C-alpha cells in the first residue's frame, strides 16, 4: 500500500508519492474545482496543499478507511473550512466566468443552468451531488467521506436533487 510507504520509513517514498499524485491529482483538482464554484486557481492551490498535507503528515491517514475515502474526506473538510472562512458564502455563489469550462457551459444551455443551480446549493448538498454524480461514489463511500450515516447521505441527496429540480424548473419557465 503506497501510503504505508509514506507513513513508515520503508521503500522509495518519492516514488510512492509520485504514484499517488498521478492517480489522484486530476480527480482532486476536479473535486475542488466543482466544490469551489469553478475557481480554477483556487482549485489548483487546494490540490497542491492537499498533497503537501499528505507529505508532511502521512501518519494522519486513518487505517480504518480506504485511502480514496480518506483523501476525499480531507479534501471535503478543506472545502468546509473554506466555506466557514467565507461565512457569508457570497464568494461562492458568484459564478466564475473566466474559464475554459465556462465556454463549454456557454455552448450548452442545460450545462450552464445546472452549473448555476449547483452554485446556489448548500455546501453540504453540493458536495453530495458532486461526489455522487461526478465521482460516482457509492452511498457507503459517501458516508465515510462526509462522516455521517448512510441514511443522512441519502436524505441529503434527496433534498439536494429536489432543490436542483426546483431551480431548473424555474429556469425553464
Amino acid at each position, binding site marked *: 500500500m503506497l501510503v504505508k510507504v*509514506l507513513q513508515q520509513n520503508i521503500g522509495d*517514498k518519492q516514488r510512492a508519492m509520485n504514484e499517488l499524485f498521478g492517480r489522484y491529482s486530476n480527480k482532486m483538482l476536479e473535486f475542488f474545482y466543482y466544490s469551489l464554484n469553478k475557481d480554477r486557481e483556487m482549485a*489548483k492551490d487546494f490540490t497542491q496543499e492537499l498533497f*503537501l498535507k499528505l*507529505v508532511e503528515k502521512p501518519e494522519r491517514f486513518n487505517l480504518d478507511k480506504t485511502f480514496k475515502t480518506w483523501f476525499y474526506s480531507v479534501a471535503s473538510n478543506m472545502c468546509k473550512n473554506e466555506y466557514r472562512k467565507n461565512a457569508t458564502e457570497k464568494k461562492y455563489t458568484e459564478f466564475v466566468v473566466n474559464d475554459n*469550462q465556462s465556454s463549454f457551459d456557454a455552448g450548452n444551455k442545460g*450545462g450552464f443552468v445546472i452549473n448555476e443551480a449547483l452554485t446556489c446549493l448548500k455546501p453540504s448538498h453540493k458536495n453530495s451531488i458532486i461526489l455522487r454524480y461526478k465521482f460516482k461514489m457509492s452511498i457507503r463511500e459517501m458516508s465515510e467521506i462526509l462522516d455521517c450515516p448512510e441514511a443522512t447521505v441519502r436524505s441529503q441527496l434527496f*433534498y439536494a*436533487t429536489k432543490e436542483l429540480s426546483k431551480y431548473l424548473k424555474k429556469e425553464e419557465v
Partner: protein
Amino acid sequence: MKNEKSLHELIENYDFSELSIAQQQFILTEMSREEYTNMRKTIIETIIYFDEAPILMAEDIVSPKVKSNHLLLKFVNYKIPVYKIAALLVIVFSIQNLIPEEIPSNNQVSERTNEYIIDTDTFLSCSRYSSKNSIKYDQGLSRLVIN
C-alpha cells in the same frame, strides 16, 4: 428519513412507469408524479453534465518532494528561527555575567601561611609625632600588638 432514503433510490434508478403499483402508490403519498419525473430528469441531466464536461488536468501542479526521515539529514536540515538564536545568546551572556571570575578553593586557603605583623609602636611613641602635645593624657596603654 426512511421514506427519503427509499424515495431517492427509486428516483435514481427507475422511471415512474417502471415502478410497481405498490411503489407508485408509495411515491404518490410523498409527491406528485410530475415532481418525481422532474427529479429524475434533474438527476439524468446532472450526470450528463458531469460526463460531458472536459476533464481537468493538473498539469502545472507538481508532485511534492518527500523529505527523508534519516536522523542525520533531519539534524542537518533543521532550521533554527532567528529569534531562538537571539534568545539563546542573551541567556548565555547573562549566565556568563552571573558567574564570578575566580573563586578561591578551600585548598588555596589552607595552603596560605599566616603572617604575623608585630608592631612595636606604643601610644607614647605616637605622641612623639603629634604636634604640640595634642595627645595629652597617657592612659597607660602599654603596647598595641596586632596579630
